[in-house]
């Protein structure tokens, strides 16, 4: 029965140094049996796209607390589309005002998980959306 585990890239785009949330999510997904790669800080959207392709992930989880999400998250989605990897599920997290959420959804970020999110909700969201 053991299908291939879900592979996730947890990424920090931009210059933001807040990685507590990203690391906690990374560890929680790993504890839930997923294969998780964490990029570390200060990744450009191009670097994130490249890592996603190289690591052959099904999910890219972006974290930003610096307010640069509207600029950076859509660039990752676009980059994946250009590389014929539009099926990769792109998620976002961090300090993201409510009014920005529809804009990000429109740009192809499937879901936004804000402050106070429980890791188990992220885990079940990914499991529901990623085909086994």
């Amino acid at each position: 029965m053991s299908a291939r585990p879900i592979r996730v890239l947890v990424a920090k785009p931009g210059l933001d140094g807040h990685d507590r949330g990203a690391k906690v999510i990374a560890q929680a997904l790993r504890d839930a049996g997923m294969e998780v790669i964490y990029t570390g800080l200060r990744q450009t959207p191009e670097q994130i796209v490249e890592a996603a392709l190289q690591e052959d992930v099904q999910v890219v989880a972006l974290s930003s607390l610096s307010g640069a999400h509207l600029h950076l998250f859509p660039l990752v989605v676009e980059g994946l589309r250009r590389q014929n990897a539009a099926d990769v599920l792109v998620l976002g997290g961090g300090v993201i005002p409510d009014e920005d959420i529809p804009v990000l959804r429109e740009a192809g970020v499937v879901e936004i998980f804000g402050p106070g999110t429980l890791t188990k909700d992220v885990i079940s969201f990914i499991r529901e959306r990623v085909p086994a």
Partner: protein
Amino acid sequence: MFDRDKLDQLRITEREYREKLAGQCKKRPERQESFTTDAGVEIEPLYTPLDLAGQDFEQDLGYPGAYPFTRGVQPNMYRGRLWTMRQYAGFGTAEETNERFRYLLEQGQTGLSVAFDLPTQIGYDSNHPLSRGEVGKVGVAIDSLEDMETLFAGIPLDKVSTSMTINSPAAVLLAMYIAVAAKQGVAPDKLKGTIQNDILKEYIARGTYIFPPGPSMRLITDVFAYCAKEIPQWNTISISGYHIREAGSTAVQEVAFTLADGIAYVQAAIDAGLNVDDFAPRLSFFFNAHLNFFEEVAKFRAARRLWARIMKERFGARNTKSLMLRFHTQTAGCTLTAQQPDVNIMRVAFQALSAVLGGTQSLHTNSRDEALALPSAHSVLIALRTQQVIGYEIGVTDTVDPLGGSYFVESMTDQIEKRARAYIEKIDELGGAPEAIEFMQREIQKSAYRYQQDIESGSKVVIGMNKFQVTEEKPKDLLKVDPAVGERQTAKLEALRARRDNARVSAILDRLKEAADTSENLMPLFVEAVNAYATLGEICDVLRDVFGEYRQQIIF
């Protein structure tokens, strides 16, 4: 501290109390099986003189203003002067932030605290490709002396003290501050303030590093040496536990890792040939005020005592001021909830009170809406008023160290000091803080994950988030940074480059490049470079060429 016969008597009565308690708990169990702080200190149902039997009043507490400073750094603490009320602020352009500064000063704030945007903190000009989307977002964008002049326009630098949260390029921003002061006719020896200048915690927890540890430590000791001569009232570093705690550490780890960083800076300066009593009086610290009230009060007291002992015993410092741990406090941003944000006002008030009871020298109170966005002016005002209520209305400032002598708080103070010491010994074994960055990151990560698991299991209650939730509308009056700020900064930069004496800029940058490769103190060259309107990005690029860049080890 107590009479031995009396203590023996107490042992008997305390046993009786414990037996009675055990009987009662059998009938009706307590709310939890055990009561433990995040740092793992088990809390007893009751504290008595027996818990302090080993304590010596003069050696362990002493008097405020005297070694080991457990009770405070001044003899009369807030009876003389309240702490400096200093709200961290900055967003958009220098014009907008200047306006916020003036507003805060009009509202009774007593010091300034500058938040810089990420490109500034990482030494990129606003038009750098990596600055896209980040300009003016988490702080003010500063590209050159021109922006710094605007930032402090109409604010007399001999009258206010200014704290600047800047680390890797701290020396350059300090040079800009000195240059602005000179233009205002204010001499360097009149300047009061602080630069954070703490690179080790950037590697450990905060992330705005540029250069590798070696050259970074050199920039820091250059600042120590320069300021000792030129700006004697300036705090040359703010050794910061705040961000270590925000990254998820416990209170004990916060004290231990911060003081371990402090030890590394003192050692680096001594190794660079400085005399400890020449620079140590200007070292300052920065801590977090988190939720566990008494643990936090004890933490501040323990940090003060432990640092005094380290400076005296380990470094042989003699000047009383070298032994004093003076600190700024900010309430814990990570405890703010996006849910029911008004409840954050209460969290912040209790956290701020713990800092005051712990003897802080200055304080930033977070705003209720900071889990959602940068704070609005109205939210900042409530946060500042919270400090003013503590300072002026509730009487906690009328005596020194009001919780001193509390069996519980003293016992907790001992516990935190003891546990922090054990961590510092471990870091020493690893070769000191610069060698122990990954060890500290791993320890913080473990604590952060445990904290999250406790929230998810419900064993840690977060009001509005995992208990007492409501359906609610999110607040609408959030501050939004104008997305055009990046373009405005870029236009300003282009105009500056067209206007300034570019030959003079190249000459000083060449000179800086040569000097960076030697052990010459770089501060005077930074002052010269910013006065020629060399940009922060240009100066940092020269240093990147010579020093290289830090590459983070990925730990999770």
